């Protein structure tokens, strides 16, 4: 899906856990997620902590969308 959205001319960021698959399928802007059943959450955290973590990942995704890339890029969390 990610490649077709890109092909349609819209910048797209792929938030996913298994970044190697994302690279294989051809995403250009990739942000790593937490785990497959909860990419943007973590049941081990409190609700507030979990949301804070989700904010971080989405902020990273917005950052990726605002960044010029020339090749497939994984935007790792600091």
């Amino acid at each position: 899906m990610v490649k077709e959205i890109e092909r349609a001319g819209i910048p797209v960021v792929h938030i996913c856990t298994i970044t190697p698959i994302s690279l294989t399928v051809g995403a250009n802007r990739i942000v790593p997620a937490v785990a497959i059943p909860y990419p943007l959450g973590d049941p081990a955290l409190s609700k507030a902590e979990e949301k804070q973590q989700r904010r971080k990942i989405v902020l990273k995704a917005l950052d990726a969308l605002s960044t010029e890339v020339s090749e497939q890029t994984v935007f790792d969390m600091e």
Partner: protein
Amino acid sequence: MSEFRVVHYINQFFGQVGGEEMAHVPPEYREGKVGPGLALEANFKGEAVIVGTVVCGDSYFNENMDEAKETILAMVEKAKPDLFVAGPAFNAGRYGVACGAMAAYVKEKLGIPVITGMYIENPGADMYKTDIYIISTRNSAAGMRDAAKKMAALALKMLKNEKIGASSEEDYIPQGRRVNLFEKLRGSERAVNMLLQKLQGKPFTTEYPMPDFDRVPPNPPVADISRAKIALVTSGGIVPKGNPDHIESSNASKYGRYDIHGVMNLTSDTYETAHGGYDPSYANADADRVVPLDVLRDFETEGKVGSIYEYFFSTVGNGMAVKSAKAFAEDFSKELIKENVQAVILTST
């Protein structure tokens, strides 16, 4: 039962007109079998007969392709065949292209089964393998006996409407469509045999060659994300509770488009996942863990993003055919373009 009628296409060389110096000759129709037609007909074992043969120069065909195709089609049609066979062309490039082009054209126009044969590196193979059955042959006419036998066998199957097996069973060039078959040995034994071949440096054939993945160049970044309209898409199967569109838990045949106008977050009362490939309990408890609508609403209020597009798109990535994924995205991207969406956040599980 009467015999099936077959028309055969061959080039000037196999038609015994001459070699390269006669490659310019236009198509001619002869009654009955000629040259390689003898071997083919012998392998039909009385079930089919070659009623006519078209002989055409390779240069003529390739240099006048549109005209040649029409002329030959008329000749073929007149003979009222049940099947059209071309070649085999082995590694002869122009002959291979002619066989492929003509067979594909007859199939398209007359709707009868067609077959040809050529060497896998013949340019005609790559051009026509997805349209027609091309028996994989050796690279020279020394492989005629074998080619004729396999072409005739598959031709008879097509004539009798029998199930066509996988490429490895019928020896045709793979068509880019995976076909299931039952092997004689179970998978584990095939694996052990393959490993032994590999260890001994002997040839082995993988059952699935690795694909080439194509790439799309990245789009320029969003100039000002704080004013951009952003759409949410997920392959994590998040749907309104009860899965109103009945999106399948694996190899989904559709995607959903869900109104999130005024929705501030995705709760366990209102949303769930239809995905069958991961433990659903976490997403069912809080679907924001897959589609982060709650924080994006906050960002909207905080002015970090312009706005959130009022529909999100969702499907189940589990076991999904790449083709379906591609078709879905092509489809909803049109809407996104039309609605001036400037960026997409796609989440996967």
